């Protein structure tokens, strides 16, 4: 019996957590910098594209029932292709999670943990994720599902509490740098939906595989909405120059929030929620890395591997030497690796698998017809 089966709410939360952690760091800032006042429009545009892309993916997944992309790759190119794809996924997830944790740890250090080394903060996050994975995938996904409403409410609070400070004129010009930058080159911002990587892997964990479409569509719409909210809040609250600084953009917004005369600086409360978000994010990513590793090594227990994965993530956090390198890894490397893995590589394999399945089905049908005739 597979004990790792989860429901819809947990699955949606697993997907959203990835987008939310990027939103907390520099994703809105990145979109804003590239599209200026057309950023909200661009977000709507890429959300629609992501949605269409997911619908196509789900159609391609149809013949594979409750199989994930690794099973499909095995079907297409045998265990060698599966191992290659697994390796690419593992490296991508380890690298991105390591960079993201480093980025957040750096934020924490800047904000209030000035005396604590960044490596130590990263280590704390990684150790908590190791502990979380000792509790099992179910506990991780359930905890993530409980946290998710609070995290999303926080984003809404940020938006609503800044409502009075918004300068509507900042949406103009609506098309920002122009149609070309918004809709043609702006399509590359679809990397924001790098969370789709979980949708390639989540199918075997769903209690009801038929609900996979629902999970994908709801999570893309929710993520898109929250990206839109944060991008809009950032655009309407700050001039482009401030928004384009690239450091702690959302945190900068929260510093301006005040509730009456009593609570004039509530940004620390957001730090608490975001810390929880990153604990959850890292635990989820580690769970999936372990799942991929387990699938490739045919092991039943993942305990020893947890430490190896943790070590891998920790090593990644030690690589960047300065904040510029962190931003480069977070925005550029993540952008292109996500675009390649999620939107090109996985899609191609899925397409090949679909075609192979269709061809096989055709051969079977022809054989059946021949048998019937004979």
């Amino acid at each position: 019996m597979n004990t790792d089966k989860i429901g819809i709410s947990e699955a949606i939360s697993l997907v959203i957590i990835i987008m939310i952690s990027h939103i907390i760091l520099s994703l809105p800032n990145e979109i804003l910098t590239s599209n200026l006042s057309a950023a909200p429009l661009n977000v709507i545009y890429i959300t629609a594209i992501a949605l269409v892309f997911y619908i196509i993916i789900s159609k391609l997944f149809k013949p594979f029932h409750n199989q994930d992309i690794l099973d499909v790759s095995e079907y297409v190119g045998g265990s060698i292709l599966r191992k290659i794809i697994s390796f690419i996924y593992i490296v991508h997830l380890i690298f991105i999670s390591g960079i993201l944790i480093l980025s957040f740890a750096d934020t924490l250090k800047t904000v209030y943990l000035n005396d604590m080394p960044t490596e130590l903060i990263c280590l704390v996050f990684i150790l908590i994720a190791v502990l979380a994975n000792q509790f099992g995938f179910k506990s991780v996904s359930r905890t993530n599902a409980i946290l998710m409403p609070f995290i999303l409410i926080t984003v809404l609070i940020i938006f609503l509490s800044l409502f009075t400070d918004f300068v509507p004129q900042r949406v103009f010009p609506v098309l920002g740098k122009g149609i070309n930058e918004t809709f043609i080159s702006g399509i590359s911002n679809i990397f924001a939906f790098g969370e789709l990587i979980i949708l390639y892997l989540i199918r075997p964990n769903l209690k009801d595989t038929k609900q996979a479409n629902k999970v994908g569509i709801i999570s893309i719409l929710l993520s898109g909405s929250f990206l839109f909210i944060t991008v809009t809040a950032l655009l309407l609250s700050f001039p482009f120059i401030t928004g384009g600084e690239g450091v702690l953009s959302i945190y900068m917004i929260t510093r301006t929030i005040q509730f009456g005369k009593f609570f004039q600086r509530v940004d620390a409360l957001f730090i608490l929620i975001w810390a929880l978000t990153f604990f959850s994010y890292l635990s989820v990513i580690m769970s999936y890395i372990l799942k991929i590793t387990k699938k490739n090594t045919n092991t039943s227990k993942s305990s020893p591997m947890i430490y190896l994965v943790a070590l891998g993530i920790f090593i990644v956090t030690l690589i960047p030497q300065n904040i510029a390198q962190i931003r480069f890894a977070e925005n550029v490397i993540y952008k292109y690796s996500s675009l390649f893995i999620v939107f090109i590589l996985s899609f191609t394999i899925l397409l090949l698998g679909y075609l192979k399945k269709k061809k096989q089905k055709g051969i079977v049908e022809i054989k059946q017809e021949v048998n019937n005739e004979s």
Partner: protein
Amino acid sequence: MKVLQNLKNFFNSILNVEEDYDFTMSDETASNTQPEDLLKKQNIYPSIDVNLDYIHSRYNSLINSDIKIRNFLLNAKGKEFKAFLIYIDGLVDSSSINDFILNPLMLKNYSNQNTNPQVISEAITNNISVRKIKKFNVVDYIYECLLPQNSIKKVSSFDELVKDINSGNCALFVDTIEFAFDIDIKNFNQRSISEPKNEPSVRGSGEAFVENLRTNTSMIRRSINNENLIVENIVIGKSNQNNCAVCYIKNIANSSLVAEAKYRLNNIDVDYILSCSELEQLLKDDPETTLPEIMSTERVDKTCAALLQGRVIIIYNGSPYALILPVTLFDFISSPEDVNLNYRFSNLLKFLRGLAFFITLLLPGLYLAITIYHRELIPTELLYSIVATRVSVPFPIILEILMMELSFELIREAGLRVPSPLGSTVGIVGALVLGEAAVSASIVSPILIIIIAVTAISSFAIPDFSLSFHLRIARFAYIMLGSLCGFLGIGIGIFVHMLTLNSLKSFGVPYLSPYSPLSSIKNHSYFLKPVWKREYRASFLKSKKPIAQDKISMKWREK
């Protein structure tokens, strides 16, 4: 590995030194071993003398003052048989033994002296009388004619018999019979039914469980008028073979849940258990956690409500508590009073209790985190006043808070342990005098006294004693985490706490049901619905009758 094992053995050999106890008598005079033949399973012998010797030996009747063995001659249809009774003085009803056991067995009245065979039927044909006669059987005769008792068993195993004698039955041995009559004549002094001491309720029932199993089950029977209420007995323990009752309503409770409860009870291999709390620890899904996974209650009405919801109840003989299973975290924050009040009042109280839960757990830790790391959260005026009150305090905040927390725990423990007339004195001396003196002596700041007092009051608002204990322990962890790295530490605490809660199960039911995993909240949300809208039983109980009442329960309104 071998080196580690050797090291372990080495340290064990150093630590585990067998102590030679310095008794006044020498070891040779006393034997610590029991004769082996008494430990073997033994059936009752046909010879009464052998049985008598065995009983004397098993019960150490020569030194046991309350073991009573009464030898006599049993009269049955003019025949005499050697017999004896064994019982424990104080556990049986002596007058019942005299009047309804010894009297009929020893009495030489006409009926008993009559040696004529019992005629079942008689037919006369051509002056020839044909009688059908029942053959005399002493066992049947004793069972059917001489023992006017409602509860008698024929027992052939000494083990079973001894267990019943120990619980207050009396055994009758008769010569030539290979079994004994096990007669239920229990009667011993017990505490009368009183009001619940630890779970008071303003408008609820005033009955609490007592130490006697049968009294407890009878109280449940009286409250639940349903023939599907099953009370199954299971024996637990080797040295102390005590009964516990598994109660459930057959057509409501999930069969798998009942089977699981019985399976766990039947597979407890311990020497003895003396209380329900010990049994609870042996039944828990995760024995290491400090969170309660089974609820214990002394209230009969709460127990009956649980049974009617489809839960299973375990009552242990000798313990005035019943165990309710399965339970979720939210059951521990509910009070028995809730169902007796208007649902709006109950929900207000539930909200307050929820708030108390978080205050108890987090307030001191948050205070530390804010005052050490996130001072910007505190409004300037308040920050000034906090700083001003702390100016003369020489200790760091963490030490200050730990001192106060420990003092409070000490006062609480001392208040519980001293005789009740002194309890309030300890409270007054501890809380008022000590607190006031500590502030005057600038050992702690007044704001901290407020924080600790609010935390303490909140902890008293948690209805369940075990959950309150867990919160007390967890609070110290949050204090340490908050002082180490502020909100990041609090975040670590909350995350790990949630992981723990999500990993727990109570008899297969997730501990945070129905919220995590999110399932149907129909009738088991944290906040109560009005009585007329409680149409469903909790979905996580997977009851055989998921619908508790019709959609329209107040049918009189329709007319």
